[in-house]
């Protein structure tokens, strides 16, 4: 019995296959402007009995092939709990949205909040800023770690923050110091949301942005505690979808 969990996000699609309770395959693809054909590509050649979809594109996929759908809130909380039982909060900074979820001691969801209408505090913000400093977003975190604190980015809006960064550069500030300030800005927005839903440790830090070493260092410093970062932080949703499918259909020999 193989269950596939697929998370169709705004920037990337992840698939996790669970066979008899164990993860046997993880794969990732860019969403591009044709999410359905990307899903087809990533799913072709994979064998599974059941499919559970989450993320923005879940309903689109479910119209196209037989699939159960769950929201990414549920998927992320299921995935995080399987990876880190006993976790009490989840911060997911994705490509275009950020989610904060708080969990009760028994693992049930207490509160959640999503920011999916504004780029501030999301991966998009960092991507945009990295581009304005002529850098790949994959390298941006390491670059920012070489910077010194002392600059504050005041603008919340991505567009205005870029103007602010440009002004700072024009005043002679070092790019790495500005980069660090931009990372601090992302973290500030995200932590505000996390505090609103109830920040309790241990905190799981997931989503593509959790690959960013600067963000991880900053969040550990600010919370004065180590956050838990999964090995594949952007696959937590897909894992959660697979877990959901496994628990629901696991006894079904279909």
């Amino acid at each position: 019995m193989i269950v596939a969990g697929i998370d169709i996000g705004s920037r990337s699609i992840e698939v996790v296959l669970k066979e008899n309770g164990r993860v046997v395959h993880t794969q990732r693809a860019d969403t591009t402007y044709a999410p359905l054909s990307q899903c087809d590509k990533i799913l072709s050649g994979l064998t599974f009995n059941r499919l559970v979809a989450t993320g923005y594109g879940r309903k689109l996929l479910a119209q196209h092939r037989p699939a159960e759908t769950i929201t990414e809130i549920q998927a992320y909380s299921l995935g995080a709990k399987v990876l880190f039982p006993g976790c009490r909060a989840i911060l997911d900074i994705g490509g275009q949205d950020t989610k904060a979820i708080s969990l009760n001691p028994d693992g049930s969801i207490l509160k959640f909040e999503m920011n999916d209408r504004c780029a501030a505090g999301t991966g998009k913000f960092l991507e945009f800023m990295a581009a304005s400093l002529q850098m790949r977003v994959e390298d941006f975190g390491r670059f920012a770690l070489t910077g010194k604190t002392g600059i504050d980015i005041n603008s919340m809006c991505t567009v205005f923050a870029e103007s602010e960064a440009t002004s700072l550069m024009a005043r002679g500030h070092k790019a790495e110091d500005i980069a660090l300030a931009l990372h601090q800005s992302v973290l500030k927005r995200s932590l505000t949301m996390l505090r609103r839903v109830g920040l309790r440790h241990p905190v799981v830090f997931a989503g593509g942005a959790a690959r960013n070493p600067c963000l991880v260092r900053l969040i550990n410093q600010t919370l004065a505690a180590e956050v838990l970062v999964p090995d594949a932080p952007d696959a937590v949703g897909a894992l959660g979808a697979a877990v959901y499918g496994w628990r629901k259909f696991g006894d079904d020999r279909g």
Partner: protein
Amino acid sequence: LRRHDPAPISGLDALLINQVYFYDDPIRFTESVHKICDELEDRAARGEGAFPGGAPRLLFSGCPMAVPNWKLPYIVESSGAVIVGEESCVGERGTRNLVDDSGQTLDELMTAVMDRYFEIDCAIFTPNPDRLRHIEEMYHTYKAQGVIHYGLQFCQPYLMESIPVERSLEERGIRTLRVETDYSQEDVEQLKTRVEAFLEVLSA
């Protein structure tokens, strides 16, 4: 009538009635409402509903929705939950604390009207403790399982009250989801994700 499970009327239809209440001819409106209530009583007696029995029941609290704003009930009810009451001007606020019409003089009647105004618990007035009590009362009366707090963008009084209301309700064990939006259709899917996630949480 909306206490019944299954709810005999959908939140969308009830909202439409409440919206029409604002501007229809009073006599014609009263006749229509009587007819509808007769039909609803009939439905309730037969256990017939606009939604299947056992559908999640949500109470809506917040800003009024003027025609043709049917966005929130559309989002909620197409996700499988039924709105069983509105703590709002497009809900019970208009029919609570009615003016005492026992006065005999113009002065007495005018004072009665004024007294009524002091009882209005809209968020534009502060302090506003009655509103919280009303939400709780409706939650229990209509056997709701959760509250959706709806704030219109730039309606600061409701947006300001949204967090204290949410906190107070959660402290009393009433699950609450805060939604802030405008009249556009662009964020419908984002809101649906939140509502669906809220329903997943309620059903856990």
